[in-house]
């Protein structure tokens, strides 16, 4: 085993360990932990048998093995970034809805029994972002 393999293995194992520790402390939702743990497992596989990369490269018709790693990594990180952008958009939308509901509740409380009774909305204004968590 060469020094590079050991280095890859150590990084991958650290990755998995940190993720498990964050899950243990309940500071990371399991869905994100699963994502990075699977990356770590990929790293372990590569660390144990670096020829995997060359075989994948050959089957894809790529002459230089390491460029497959870069291609894969860039595509993967791009996807993760897009997913996080989507999540942030959803969270912003939800924050807005919460702020609105709070404003309406406070307004209703300050008005007390006076004024018109609010019509209680039967539905949620969220139809457009109804993605489940």
């Amino acid at each position, binding site marked *: 085993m060469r020094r590079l393999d050991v280095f890859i293995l150590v990084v991958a194992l650290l990755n998995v360990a940190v993720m*498990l520790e964050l*899950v*243990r*402390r*309940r500071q990371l*939702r*399991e*869905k994100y*932990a*699963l994502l990075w743990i699977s990356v770590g497992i990929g790293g372990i596989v590569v660390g144990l048998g670096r020829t995997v990369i060359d075989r994948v490269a050959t089957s894809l018709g790529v002459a230089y093995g390491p460029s497959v790693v870069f291609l894969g990594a860039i595509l993967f990180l791009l996807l993760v970034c897009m997913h996080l952008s989507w999540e942030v958009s959803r969270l912003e939308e*939800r924050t807005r*809805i*919460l702020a609105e*509901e709070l404003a309406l509740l406070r307004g209703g409380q300050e008005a007390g029994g006076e004024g018109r009774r609010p019509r*209680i*909305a*039967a*539905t*949620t204004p*969220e*139809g457009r*972002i*109804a993605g*489940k*968590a």
Partner: protein
Amino acid sequence: MADLLVIVPALNEEGAIAGVVAATSEALSAQVVVVDDGSTDGTGAAARAAGAIVLRHAFNLGVGAAVRTGLRYAVEHGYETVLQLDGDGQHDPDEASLLLRRLERGDVDVVVGSRFEHGYALAPARRTVMRLLSSIVSRRLGTRITDTTSGFRAFGGPAVEYFSRVYPSEYLSDTVEALLLAADAGLRVTEIPIHMRRRETGTASTNPVTATFHVVRLLLVVAVHRARVSPGAGPATAPAPAPPKVEVG
């Protein structure tokens, strides 16, 4: 029962919810709280018209979060016993009294209604997962629980206050992880057989890909559970200066 609160988590159950509320109030003469988990149809209005108190989530958070909201309501209003049943009409309110009577014997804190003892066919993959979860949870609790994902449950004693703080909100965690948390807290859990009815309206939310993801996530949860810190990070539900309890009728 004045001390009993019925929690019905509901998502887009406009067609079934009124019937569930009516049947439950009639069978148990208890206050019913429907937690509308961000429905986009008239679930909340239908439940209110049928006589339930409606707590509405501003957006969809999942069954566990809905139950948790209901439990916090129970604690803040001084209810000592909580019954949880689904808003789609699959749980028979007449059988709820079986769960409650079991709870009243006083030797358990949580009663789970199990679908399996009366026979309930499952696809092989699902059956394997259910058996695995059942054996893990049963071993941890020291008592046999066959239906770890049942949403037909009764909580009494310290379980109401405890779960109002720690009830897991993620899909499947709300049922399975909750049982492991019950074991951590030394709560006594038991299971009794119930019948399931056909869904009255609406559709079950199962898609093979997301289902697999949720099962994998749940297996991670179960695997690391023993090592995890307890989740008590929720907001402190201070025993509010008892607001007047709402009575039925």
